[in-house]
């Protein structure tokens, strides 16, 4: 087996085994109930922290577990394999909320805002999107006005993962003029006066993750909570997107892989017209196409991840990988439901959930269209 490079080595396999054992013990037995309830116990954050799962990819000095991009990938794959990508997104909201702090925060801020989250004592969320500004991040309107030792924050944030129960929000606000240069990052404590949360929003998928709207009404945030300098926000948002897109691409390949596995199992056992579904060439070929797409998608995502890990700029490639992986998972989850027939439309069947949960992946972290805008800028210059 020598002569080619594997992406996953001993450490990754061990990390994967730990996350899988955690999922088997702490998540899988309850996952269907949590999906139906639209929630999972907050205690799970603490348990995942104890196993060091929340700390993957964060430096040890802030309570992290260390580990490279492929340790993170192995963990995301195993969490999604619990059958609830929503749970993976909810438990993983720190992975979009903490990187801006790590990237432009001071040492003091890192200690204050990262440690408690990695310990599972606090839940972190990221607030960029607003009711009137999603893809067009530069148009956000939540205002933060400097008043002595505080910022006075007014506005609202939309579709915030873990928003309903987050203790701290890494929040993009406007401190300066119109446009991207006027955007800054504040970490806002959910206990601050003037901070309030909507009910949980009802969604098509990702049921086990809570998604909420957050309102700021003269919310007083100490200036010590400004990350970096005023006007540094947009850059940090864009940098953060790379990691988020990689995670979403991995979620897409894993979702597609699971849909494929379910379809193979089902079509070997389901009889139609006197033979199993696999006895019909149409099904066999459909499965072969699905398997081919999943393979190509996963290899592409891994390859881009390896380059990111090596420090090579992959803004174009990660946009391509996210889009490709999502197009594949769109097709494969659709076909998986088709192969399952009426059963595929029923909640007892995993493919029904995979189909619903998959839909967000082409929207969150930058839509298909925005990815294409980025790609076209690179190829048309």
């Amino acid at each position, binding site marked *: 087996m020598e002569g080619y490079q594997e992406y996953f080595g001993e*450490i990754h396999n061990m990390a994967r085994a730990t996350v899988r054992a955690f999922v088997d013990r702490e998540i899988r037995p309850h996952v269907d109930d949590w999906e139906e309830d639209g929630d999972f116990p907050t205690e799970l954050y603490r348990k995942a922290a104890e196993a060091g799962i929340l*700390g993957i990819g964060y430096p040890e000095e802030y309570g992290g577990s260390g580990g490279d991009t492929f340790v993170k990938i192995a963990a995301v794959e195993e969490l999604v394999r619990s059958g609830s990508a929503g749970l993976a997104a909810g438990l993983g909201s720190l992975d979009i909320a903490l990187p801006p702090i790590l990237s432009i925060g001071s040492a003091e801020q890192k200690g204050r805002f990262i440690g408690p989250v990695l310990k599972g004592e606090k839940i972190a969320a990221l607030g960029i999107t607003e009711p009137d500004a999603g893809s067009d991040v530069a148009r956000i309107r939540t205002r933060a006005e400097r008043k002595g030792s505080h910022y006075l924050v007014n506005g609202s944030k939309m579709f915030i993962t873990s928003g309903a129960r987050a203790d701290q929000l890494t929040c993009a606000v406007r401190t300066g003029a119109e446009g991207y240069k006027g955007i800054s990052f504040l970490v806002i404590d959910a206990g601050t006066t003037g901070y309030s949360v909507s009910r949980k929003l009802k969604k098509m998928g990702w049921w086990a993750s809570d998604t909420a709207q957050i309102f700021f009404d003269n919310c007083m945030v100490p200036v010590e909570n400004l990350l970096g300098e005023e006007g540094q926000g947009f850059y940090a948002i864009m940098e953060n997107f790379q990691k988020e897109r990689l995670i979403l691409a991995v979620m897409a390949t894993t979702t597609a892989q699971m849909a494929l596995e379910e379809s193979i199992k089902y079509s070997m056992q389901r009889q139609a017209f006197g033979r199993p579904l696999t006895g019909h060439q149409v099904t066999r070929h459909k499965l072969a196409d699905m398997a081919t797409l999943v393979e190509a998608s996963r290899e592409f995502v891994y390859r881009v991840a390896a380059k990111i890990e090596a420090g090579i700029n992959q803004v174009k490639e990660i946009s391509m990988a996210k889009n490709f992986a999502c197009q594949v998972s769109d097709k494969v989850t659709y076909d998986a439901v088709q192969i399952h027939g009426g059963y595929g439309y029923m909640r007892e069947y995993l493919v029904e959930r995979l189909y619903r949960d998959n839909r967000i992946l082409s929207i969150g972290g930058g839509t298909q269209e925005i990815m294409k805008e980025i790609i076209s800028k690179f190829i048309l210059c």
Partner: protein
Amino acid sequence: MKIIVCLKQVPDTETQIKIAPGGEKIVTDDIKWVMNPYDEFGVEEALRLKEKFGGDVTVIGMGPKRVTESIRTALAMGADKGILISDAALEGSDSLGTAKALAAVIKGLQFDIIFTGQRGIDEDQGLTGACIADLLGIPQVSLAVKLEVAADGKSVKVNRPVEGQTLVVEAQLPVLITTQKGLNEPRYASLPGIMKAKKKPLEEKALKDLGLDPAEVGLGGRKLKIIKITPPPARAEGKIVQGETPQDKATELARLLHEEAKLI
């Protein structure tokens, strides 16, 4: 307290086992290898004893290079030191051959307690632990579901299940204990533990380091020869009990359980 845990790497329980042409071996190409689940209980118990009494835990595994992954997992759980016995000449050893190699390494170490799994889930022989104890001339207590080391660290009381009852056995240390399901719930290797395991010592030993005669071990030294492996019979299709009324169905079910399944 010096504790040694012997550890075997086996195919993951979820692996689909295929029998190789010739019928004497299984196909190992696509197998995912894991630590024998019974050995995990040994690692966990060793770590708990270390936490209580101090001392250190050494894990010893035998097999090809890939076994380091299971040893590292034990180190990541908290063990202190690993030893891999790896040599082409040891391949194909039966339980006695394996025990000879393990005992040869253990003889050079200090120990109070040795743990082995009560059996490997691959070949289900359950002999290695007993063979090691015999070769070392120490007592062996099998199938531990609970154990209590005396406060002075000189003896141990072990519970083992016997036909629904519990037998409590007391032994002087040093002792070899084989571990059974129910003893404990093994911890996960935590992520920081996994990162730290990289830096823990893992020594490799070959046959020449053991002072054993090559004829005693490996394929040639086997006292037991595998003649043929056969897959378990395919599971028969389920049966739907027929009947007009619930009473009829229950009567029919009782008849089937008695006459066909022979369960009642």
